[in-house]
Structure formats: structure tokens, C-alpha cells
């Protein structure tokens, strides 16, 4: 993609304006490194999806994800970071000494170093009918859409903490909640499992996967298959809430960057990728715990490593 019509050259370009990218921006800006943060979505990334963030140190325990995002952005801006947000990244070239990022198909920015902090996106079920019924029976946010399902029967897909916690919260509205999970055990804390199991409105279908959505004008339910017996059956419901994890936003990266089998970027402990001058931070990289605090930590290390790289 190498282009000659460069709009502006920076020391560092950060791809992603979630907590990892914003923290990297704060450190780089403060070190007087000329930095551009390019963000495809809303500033704050997944933080914006959170009503109250109770586990980020030093802030009010009911601070909303949006407010925390705006605070982090203001801090990065105050230290001199430039922002291009709500843009579409249409090209990334990591090959030369000066790396390039094209946005919206017209502007090209260059930098000596790149920090990839593009985070994750909710994993879709990937079955027929999912996009047709999104917002019309299929939801990815219990707090947003729960009240549309008052006195109705709903399915919750997933077996992690999010799925079980959201299943419990949906019982405020729904008459009946059925959790469908592909394994014979949950990947959640004992506390979350107990709360869900002790709730009289919740029942469980284990070791089963949704094959497709049933419905014509309106959503009617799903067809599921038992993972061991391969037996198929239909489960009727008015709505489906999907919480089956996140996928790393690495689609737009060139093939030269090494990813693991789950398409997450592999880094060393200094957040360095296999390409000189290219670092990765936050949920986009291979790691076990995905939290705001861990994203912030990655962002710090990536920024300090980028500064080291620039000084070499």
C-alpha cells in the first residue's frame, strides 16, 4: 500500500482508542513524542459498553465507561496527542522504516513506530438468521434491551461470567431464561455459577450449540444440536441474548504480523510484535486476562517500548 501523498508524519501512530491506546497516548504525549491516535469506533472502545466500572482503581465505583473514556481522552489530549476518531482504517503498511496507515480511503499518515491497540468485538453466533433478527429479538446487551422482554421467554447463549451474570440480570424482566452452553461445565467464577443456578427463573441446556434461528416475520426460537449425541431439537423463545466472548480486531492487519490460532497478536513481555517498531497492547494481543487495568498496563509498556525503539 506504500503511498507518497502523506498527510502528516508522526513518531508513533496508535491504532485504537480504548484504554490500551489512550494510556499509550498519555505516556507518549507526556514524553513529548509526536503521537496520533486513530480510532475506528467511539473513543473508549469496549469501556463505552459498560454502565458502571467498579474495578478501576482511584475513580468513583459507579463511574460509567463513557465518563472514564472521556477522562482518559482528555488526559491524552492535554499531553498533546492528536486524534482521528470514528474513521475507517482502509490500509496498513508495516513494511518500511516509516510505517503507513490510510484512513477513509483518502488520507495517509506515517510513523516510525506503530502501537496496535485495536481491541476486540463481540463474537457473533455466526448462524443463519442472526443478522436478520439483530435488534428484533437478538441482542448483545442485557442492560440496554432487557425491558423489551418483560414477561417473555428468552435464551442466553454462553457459559462465561458475562453470560451467567447477564442471565441473572435478565430475570428482572423475563418470565423464563434458558442458558444454552456448548460445554458440560461453565467458564465462570463459582460465585457467578451459584447465583445463576440458584435463580428459579433460570434453566440450562448444556453441551448444545445453536444451528440456526427459527422465525419468519418474528423470531420464534432456535434449532440446537447436542454436541455428543448430535440429536437436534427446537427451543422456542421470544428473544436471544448472545455473550460468547470477543474476537480480536486483527482483520485489517497485513499478513506479515504473527497471530496465534485465535487471530490474536503474539507479543513478548515488552509488547513487541515480530515486526521491528510495531507493538501491540490490550485485548488484541494473546493473553489470559482482558480487563481495563490490564489494557492500561499493556498500553504503558507498549508506549515505553516505543520510546526506547525511537531512541535507538
Amino acid at each position, binding site marked *: 500500500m506504500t503511498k507518497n501523498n502523506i498527510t502528516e508524519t508522526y513518531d508513533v501512530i496508535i491504532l485504537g482508542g480504548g484504554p490500551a491506546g489512550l494510556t499509550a497516548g498519555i505516556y507518549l504525549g507526556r514524553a513529548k513524542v509526536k503521537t496520533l491516535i486513530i480510532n475506528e469506533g467511539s473513543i473508549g472502545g469496549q469501556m*463505552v459498553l459498560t*454502565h458502571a466500572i467498579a474495578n478501576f482503581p482511584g475513580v468513583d465505583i459507579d463511574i460509567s465507561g463513557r465518563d472514564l473514556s472521556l477522562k482518559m481522552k482528555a488526559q491524552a489530549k492535554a499531553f498533546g496527542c492528536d486524534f482521528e476518531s*470514528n474513521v475507517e482504517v482502509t490500509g496498513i503498511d508495516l513494511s518500511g522504516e516509516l510505517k503507513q496507515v490510510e484512513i477513509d480511503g483518502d488520507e495517509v499518515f506515517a510513523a516510525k513506530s506503530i502501537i496496535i491497540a485495536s481491541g476486540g468485538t463481540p463474537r457473533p453466533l455466526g448462524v443463519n438468521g442472526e443478522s436478520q433478527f*439483530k435488534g428484533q429479538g437478538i441482542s448483545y*446487551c442485557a442492560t*440496554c*434491551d432487557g425491558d423489551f422482554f418483560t414477561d417473555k421467554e428468552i435464551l442466553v447463549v454462553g457459559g462465561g461470567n458475562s453470560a451467567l451474570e447477564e442471565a441473572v440480570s435478565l430475570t428482572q424482566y423475563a418470565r423464563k431464561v434458558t442458558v444454552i452452553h456448548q460445554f458440560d461445565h461453565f467458564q465462570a467464577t463459582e460465585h457467578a455459577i451459584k447465583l445463576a443456578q440458584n435463580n428459579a427463573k433460570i434453566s440450562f441446556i448444556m453441551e448444545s450449540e445453536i444451528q440456526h434461528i427459527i422465525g419468519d416475520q418474528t423470531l420464534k426460537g432456535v434449532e440446537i444440536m447436542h454436541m455428543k449425541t448430535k440429536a437436534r431439537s427446537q427451543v422456542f423463545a421470544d428473544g436471544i441474548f448472545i455473550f460468547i466472548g470477543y474476537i480480536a480486531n486483527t482483520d485489517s492487519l497485513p499478513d506479515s504480523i504473527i497471530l496465534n490460532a485465535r487471530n490474536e497478536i503474539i507479543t513478548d513481555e515488552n509488547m513487541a510484535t515480530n515486526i521491528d517498531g510495531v507493538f501491540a497492547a490490550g485485548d488484541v494481543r494473546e493473553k489470559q486476562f482482558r480487563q481495563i487495568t490490564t489494557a492500561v498496563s499493556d498500553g504503558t509498556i507498549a508506549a515505553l517500548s516505543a520510546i526506547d525503539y525511537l531512541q535507538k
Partner: protein
Amino acid sequence: MLSTNLKHLTSVEDFNQVVENNENVMICCGRMGPMCLPVYDVMENLEEKYDHVTFYDMAFDAPYANVLRSHPKAAKFMGLPFTFYFKNGEAVEATSSIQSKKQIKDILDVQFS
């Protein structure tokens, strides 16, 4: 009233007037929640580039929002926000739940080209 940087519709009269007096209108009817905020952000971001479109928000829980909540195009909607596109007073498109910038631009480009 929603705390966005968009213009707000705060009554049915307001709504009628805006929709009747502007050729292209996009209205996002939602709350200050995770699925709605990204849509407001995209609208704020597009306001300058799409100067032939008038962008508004409306608070979903306000009584006057019934004009959109009970709109026939929203009959099957079960996800916030409800986003409407009006051309010459007529609702030409409506979506339910979060939409990406690309999805919104695609609708604007087709309906209000």
C-alpha cells in the same frame, strides 16, 4: 433530554416541524446506554460531512418519543436505539440496535444521495 452534542427533539410538535421542514432527517431515539452512545458519536462525526442531512436525537423514555416508539416501522423493534431516516416527511428506513459508521453511511448514501 439526552446529553449528546446533537440537536434534541423534545416534543411531538418539534418532531413534526423538523420532519416536515427538512428534506433529509436522521433521528436516533435512545438512552445514554452502550448500544446508543456509539450511534450518537457517529452522527456527531458525520454532521459536518453530510450537511444536506439534519441530525437529531430523542430521549426514548420521554412521553413524546411515543411518536417513534409506536411508529409502524418500529413494530418489531426490540433493541435500542431506534434510528429513523425521514425523506420529505416520510420514514424511508429505520434500524434497531447499534449500527456501525459504515452501516449508517450506507443508508445515508442510498436514501439521501
